[in-house]
């Protein structure tokens, strides 16, 4: 009899513990690895996320671990090797990481992790000096098509988001640019201001303070929604130009975890993230950078990730960028 009671108790405790484990996530601090240095775009978004995270996650904190290097590779590799599978280690994932896997042979690809959710997106856009000879997008496209390889167009590094956006744009309108690679968005803006290049493809918030000051202007945005701050800037999909009516190029960021993490935990995490993305404070902090809070759930994000992966693979193979192919 005693043994039976003991067995029943053990079973109940066991079941209770099991249920508690799944229900109680998170029951300690979650560590987010950001493979970029502090103060950069990725870091700002994830710190904004960390700020609102405790509200929806049993008051548990999210701490940011910056592991910068090799355009994101160092941090991802470290996560791959060291992160636990219990959902308490999460990784920043973005289009930059996906495109990097096609630039060089690295130890992972777009499918090495379990997707959790997308948390934001930001527009790519075309910047020119305020006094440049082009006043409309059509003028720019016409001159680009008439003089292949003559217009200098800046991007933020070969294989990076702005570079791929520039290539996609060039491919869509059937033109060729003289692509000039810089080491980051700030350098692109400097080059525009100094007159070194005639145009630049940028990502928010690069150059926006200069647009506000009247030194630069945006000819077109490749986002799916207009800028709240600049309602007059045309969208590529709305501009009435046939070739670019389907052209949406945005940079996006999301959260992934180690492959093999318990699906129940992933579901819980995704639910928490959904609430974070809908949080006013998060949305407003991102708005300061002209970044749009956007949620894509687990399956939708996985499908989107795959679509982007194929798009980049195609573009990088065609243009012969990097040395993987």
């Amino acid at each position, binding site marked *: 009899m005693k043994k039976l009671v003991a067995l029943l108790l053990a079973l109940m405790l066991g079941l209770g513990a099991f249920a508690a484990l799944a229900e109680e996530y998170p029951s300690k601090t979650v560590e987010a690895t950001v493979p970029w240095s502090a*103060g950069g775009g990725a870091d700002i978004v994830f710190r904004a996320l960390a700020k609102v995270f405790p509200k929806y996650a049993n008051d548990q904190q999210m701490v940011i*671990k910056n592991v910068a290097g090799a355009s994101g*590779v160092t941090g991802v590799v470290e996560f791959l090797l060291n992160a636990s599978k219990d959902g308490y280690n999460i990784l920043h994932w973005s289009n930059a990481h996906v495109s990097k896997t096609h630039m*060089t042979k*690295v130890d992972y690809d777009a499918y090495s992790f379990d997707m959790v959710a997308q948390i934001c997106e930001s527009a790519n856009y075309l910047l020119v000096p305020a006094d440049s000879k082009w006043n409309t997008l059509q003028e720019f496209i016409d001159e680009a098509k008439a003089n292949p390889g003559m217009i200098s167009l800046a991007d933020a590094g070969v294989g990076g988001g702005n570079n791929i956006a520039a290539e996609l744009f060039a491919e869509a309108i059937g033109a060729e640019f003289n692509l000039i690679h810089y080491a980051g968005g700030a350098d692109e803006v400097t080059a525009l*201001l*100094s007159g070194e290049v005639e145009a630049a493809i940028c990502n928010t918030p690069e150059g*926006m*303070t200069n647009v506000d000051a009247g030194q630069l202007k945006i000819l077109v945005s490749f986002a799916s929604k207009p800028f709240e701050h600049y309602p007059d800037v045309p969208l590529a999909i709305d501009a009435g130009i046939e070739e670019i009516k389907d052209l949406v190029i945005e940079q996006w960021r999301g959260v992934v975890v180690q492959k093999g993490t318990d699906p129940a935990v992933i579901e819980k995490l995704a639910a928490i993230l959904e609430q974070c993305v809908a949080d006013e404070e998060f949305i407003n902090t991102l708005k300061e950078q002209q970044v749009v809070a956007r949620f894509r759930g687990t399956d939708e994000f996985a499908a989107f990730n795959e679509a982007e992966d194929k798009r980049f693979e195609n573009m990088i193979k065609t243009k012969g960028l990097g*040395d993987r192919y």
Partner: protein
Amino acid sequence: MFNELISGLQFVFQPYAFLMMSFGVMVGIIIGAIPGLSGSIGIILLMPLVYRMDSNVAMVMLCGLFCGSMFGGSVAAILLNTPGTPSAAATVLDGHPLARQGEAGKAIGVAAISSFIGGVVSTICLILIAPELAKVALKFHAADYFSLAVFGLTIMASASGKNMLKGLMSGAVGMLIATIGTDPIVGNSRFTFGSGYLLNGFNILPVLIGVFAISEVLMTVRTQAADATIQEQNVRNFFPSFKEFKGFFWAAIVGGLIGVFIGIVPGTGGAIACFLAYNVIQRLSKHPERFGQGSLEGIAAVESSNNGTTGGALIPMLTLGIPGDVVTSVMLGALTLIGVKVGPLLFTNNPDTVYTIFAGMLIIQFLMLGLGLFYARVAPYVLKISQKILMPVVMVLCIIGAFTLSNNLYHVYVAMGFGVFGFFMKKYGYPAAPLVLGVILGPMAEQNLNRALTISRNDWSVLVTRPISLSFLILSVALIGIAIYNAAKEAKKNQETTDVVA
């Protein structure tokens, strides 16, 4: 303008702001003094504090850290033959020899005073003529950066000390090391051997730690007794005499101006400024042969130029929203994090922030001078500690510094590797300073040449038709010419002496 400056000063003298500013300077000096930690890492380490502060207070604290770290690097350079930050890489050339002569206190004192002068010069430029100077930042195109890098590389010859050939080889190795990683033009991997870590190449900080600090530790272990200490220090005399002050004052002013100029140009910073200033002052000095042996002018030139870059780098940041060097770019990130929109409209939208920065920078120089002279009095005692305690401590600090870079042991291994490499360099007489120059300037030269030619569509004449580029190239040719002429003269003189003897 003066009204706003006064209100800026009023803000800065409030207890909380003043306290945070002093804290920033003090932390900056300490971080600068630890090999491997630099101003940018210091800002990142203070981010949690910055996050919770009023943005104006945060700004002056960060500026304090920036200026403090520029001076702090010299402390390690003088005492331990290791630059605490890349901007102090040229301070070892004259600073450590002075320490070996027992004059570490005076060396640090001169460094503090020169840092002060450089900082004041750059702050005055910042306050009075920032918008005009910002235009200089925009005049530099890729071709000009390339020629500046070439000019910087020719300076290698004068930073080589006695043996120019070994110095040039050292510099060439530095350039080779810098090619490891991802090629910025087509994205190819170079010398990465398939390793994900090497895709990034070697960061300058672990290389610096290894080649200077760890090699020094290894060298000391090999050559000295455990209880030995570096030369008995004259700790009473840390303030230079008036005569000495008159001697290096001009070097400090010129160095400061060079620092401002380099600081304004985006993408260049303290490290380049310090070598440039060292070279220029050596050429202009009445006693060029003393350089490398403990010349006060040498220290003055380096320290005033690296503090000159602080005000200089703030100019494009505040007028155009473009960071002038590495530390200001991290500062920009930190400010964005707390919601300060740094850009061309800062002057019009937030003039109080701007004038707070101006006032803050002025007061920071005095704080730094005070703290610096205090260190000059106290720090030489470090050299009284026997090597068997000092060296392990240095080693631990180096490892911490290398690790902090990205919370990853990779950089520690890099530093160790370069430590061994640096040991052999020291053993066979290869100077380390040109290696640093090579690592920094090699990529700058390559990327900008590539960019210049891509923009001009393979038209090489762009290098000589642009006035700035042409000037630097002419200067480089002139420098090389002078070096060859001097070497030939030396050889002829030696030949004559041997003839006479024979």
